[in-house]
C-alpha cells in the first residue's frame, strides 16, 4: 500500500474500472485488491437448488440445504460465479471478538 502523501502531491483522482462480479460478495478491501486466480480461498456459497454441490470446489460443511462452506481457487470462484445455480459467493471475512 502507499505511503502517506507528501507535500505537493496532487489529491487523489479516481479512474473508472469494470465493476466486480455481481454474485461475489467481498468486503471493499477485498474488492480493492481483487481475487488472485492461483490463491486458495475459503468461502460460503448459497445455491439455488437445495443440496446442489457446484463443481470445481471442495465442500467443507453445510449449513442447511442451501448454504455451504468450501475451498476454491480464485479462478474456480470466477467460474463459479457463472453457474446459474449459484446465488452468491461470500469470501470469508474477519470476525474479531466483541470487546
Amino acid at each position, binding site marked *: 500500500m502507499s505511503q502517506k502523501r507528501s507535500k505537493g502531491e496532487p489529491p487523489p483522482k*479516481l479512474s473508472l474500472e469494470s465493476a466486480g462480479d455481481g454474485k461475489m460478495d467481498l468486503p471493499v478491501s477485498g474488492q480493492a485488491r481483487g481475487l488472485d486466480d492461483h490463491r486458495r480461498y*475459503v468461502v460460503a456459497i448459497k445455491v439455488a437448488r437445495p443440496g446442489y454441490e457446484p463443481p470445481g470446489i471442495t465442500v467443507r460443511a453445510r*449449513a442447511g440445504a442451501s448454504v455451504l462452506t468450501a475451498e476454491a481457487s480464485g479462478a474456480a470462484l470466477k467460474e463459479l460465479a457463472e453457474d446459474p445455480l449459484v446465488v452468491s459467493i461470500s469470501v470469508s471475512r474477519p470476525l474479531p471478538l466483541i*470487546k
Partner: protein
Amino acid sequence: MKLENVPSTSMDPRLQCLADRSRRGFRPAATAAKDRGEIAVIARVKDFASWQAMTEVRTHQPIATVADGVIVTGRIPISRVEAVRAAAGVLSLKPAQPVRPTLEATVREIRARKQDLPQPLAGAAGKGVVVGIVDFGCDFAHRNFRNADGSTRLLAFWNQGGTAEGPGSPFGYGRLYEKAEIDAALGKKDPYEAFGYRPGPAAHGTHVMDIAAGNGRGTGVPGVAPAADLVFVQIAADDVPWSGPDVVGRAFGDSVQLLEALRFIFDRAGSRPCVINISLGTNGGPHDGTSLVEQGIDALVAEKPNRAVVIAASNSFADGIHAAGTVAAGGQVDVRWEVAAADSTENEMEIWYSKDDEFGLEIIDPSGASAGSVALGQSARARDAQGQTQLFAAHRKADPNNGDNVIGIFLAEGAPRGVWTLRLTGRTVVSGAYHAWIERDDDGQSSFPAPQDNSHTLGSISCGKESIVVGSYDAHRSDTPLSWFSSAGPTRDGRHKPEVSAPGHDVWAALSESGDGSTRMSGTSMASPATTGTVALMLSAAHAGGLSLSIAQIRTALATTARRMGGAVAWDARYGEGRIDALGAVQVVSQQVAAIAALAGPAAPPVLERRRTPRAPVARGRAAAPARAAAKR
C-alpha cells in the same frame, strides 16, 4: 483458652457476635453506608410501617414483598441489635454481608438462582443440554468447568488454530481434544503443558463460558446453567486474503470458520438440546440478516427443534460508526467521514440503499477537491504517484443476497487524513433512505462527525432472523441502567433486535489460569452468555418434561417474559423487549409441559412419543405471560 458463657438467643450468629463485641466496647468504624457504631441490616418484617416506626432504625428501605411480610433494609446502632431483633413484627434480622466479586449479581438479577426457579426444574439447571461456546481462550482446568471428581465437563474442545493431528480434525483443520484427552491432561502437574494449549491470562472465552454454565466449584457462585455439558470452539481465522498487517482491525476469527464451528457443535450435540453463544462481530454488512453467515446461522438453527444461537449485540453504541438519512429526488446529501490525522490504518465504509433507488456518488477529499464520481454499477480507483491504491470505491448494483445497492469506500494507509465527503445525489428515488456504517478498526477507529446517529449499531452478524441478540445493562444498580457501550437496533429492515438485554456490566466470572479465581469484564459479550444459560434452563426443563421447543417458541418465551424498563410499553432499541427473566421463561416452558400432560391424560404416551404431540403455541403478547406480573413486583 477457656470458653465463657454468653446469653443465648435465636439471633443470627453474626449478629450475636456483634452484640457481644458491643457489650465489650467494640464500635464498628463508619463507612459510606453507615455511621460509627452502626451496622447495616436486612430484615423480614410483618409490615413496613412498623419498621419505619422503630426509632432505632435509620434509612429504612422496603425491598420486596414476600408471603409473610416485607423485606427491608436499614441501619441500626449495634447496641440496639438485640432489642430490634426482639421487637414485635421483626421476623428475621441479618447483618449486611460484604459483596464478593462473583456472578451473584447476574444470576440474582435475572432470577436464575436455584432458589428462584420452580421445583423440580431448579434441579435441572441445564442438565441434558449442550452449551456451546465459540470464543477465544478456554481454561479447561478452571474448577468451575470440572466435576466433583475433578474430571472435565467439556465433551469436546476444538482449537481451530491448533495443528491437526491425525484424521480427527473437523473439516480437516485445527486440533480436536476429546473428553478423555482433557481428563488425562487434568491429571498432570501442568495440564496446560500436557495439553499443548494455554488459554492465556484473563481469557475472554473462560469468562463467557462461566457466565453461561460455570458450576461455581472454584469461584463459589454458579453460572446460569451449571449442570449443562460444554463444548468449546476456539475460533481462528483462515488465511483470509486481506487479513495481512494492513487489514482493517485485527482478525481473530472469520465468517466461514464460524459457520463450521456451529456445524461442529450442533453435530456433536446430536439429538440433545443445544444452545450456542457467540461474541464476535464487526460493524459492516447489510444489517438486514441477509449476509451469508447470518443465513447460515438461521439455517442451522432451523434444522431441528431444541436449538438456539445467542449473539452479543456489540459494543459500538458510542463509536460514531453509523449515519442515516434520506436523499430526495434531484436532491443532494453529504455524508461526512472523519479520519484522524494520527490514524495510520486502512479504513472502510459501506452505504446501503434500496434496490428501487439510484443514487449518484461523488467523492470529495479532505482538501475539498473532487476525486471524481462513481455511477451505480461502476468501480473506481485512485492511485498515488507510485501507482499504489489510495482510494477504491465500488458502487454495486443489486447485492446478490438482498438485491439492494451498496457503496463501498476503501481508504488505504496513505490516503489523505481529514474529513472526506461522500456526496449522494437522488437520480431515481422511491424510498431515498440510506444507512452507512464505518468498519470496525481497533487500531484507529474513524467515525462520522457529531451529531452522531447511534441507532442501528448492531454487529455485522447480529441481525439474523433466528438468532437471539442481547444488549447489556448494569445489574449492580437497582435501576439497572443500560451499559454506555451497548449497541442499538433496530436492523436496517426494521426488525426488533436486540431481542432482550442481560447483565453485562462489571461482571465477575472465571479468571483463566487461576484455578478458581474470578475477574471482572464488561461488554455485551458478558450479557449474551447470561441469556445463553437462560435458554439452556428452558431447554433443560422442556427436555425433562418431554417437550420440544422450536426456535420461535424459545424466542417468544424470552421476549414475553422479559421485564420492561420504567413502564415502557414497547420494544426499546437497546433494552430490546426488556431484561431477561430466567424464572419467567422457565415457567412458560413448565406450563407447556403441564398442558401436554393434561391433554395426554392418564393414558399418557411414552415421553418420546409425547415429544411429537402437537403443542399449543406459547402464549403471545406480553400480558399473556403469567410470570410477568410477578416479575414487575
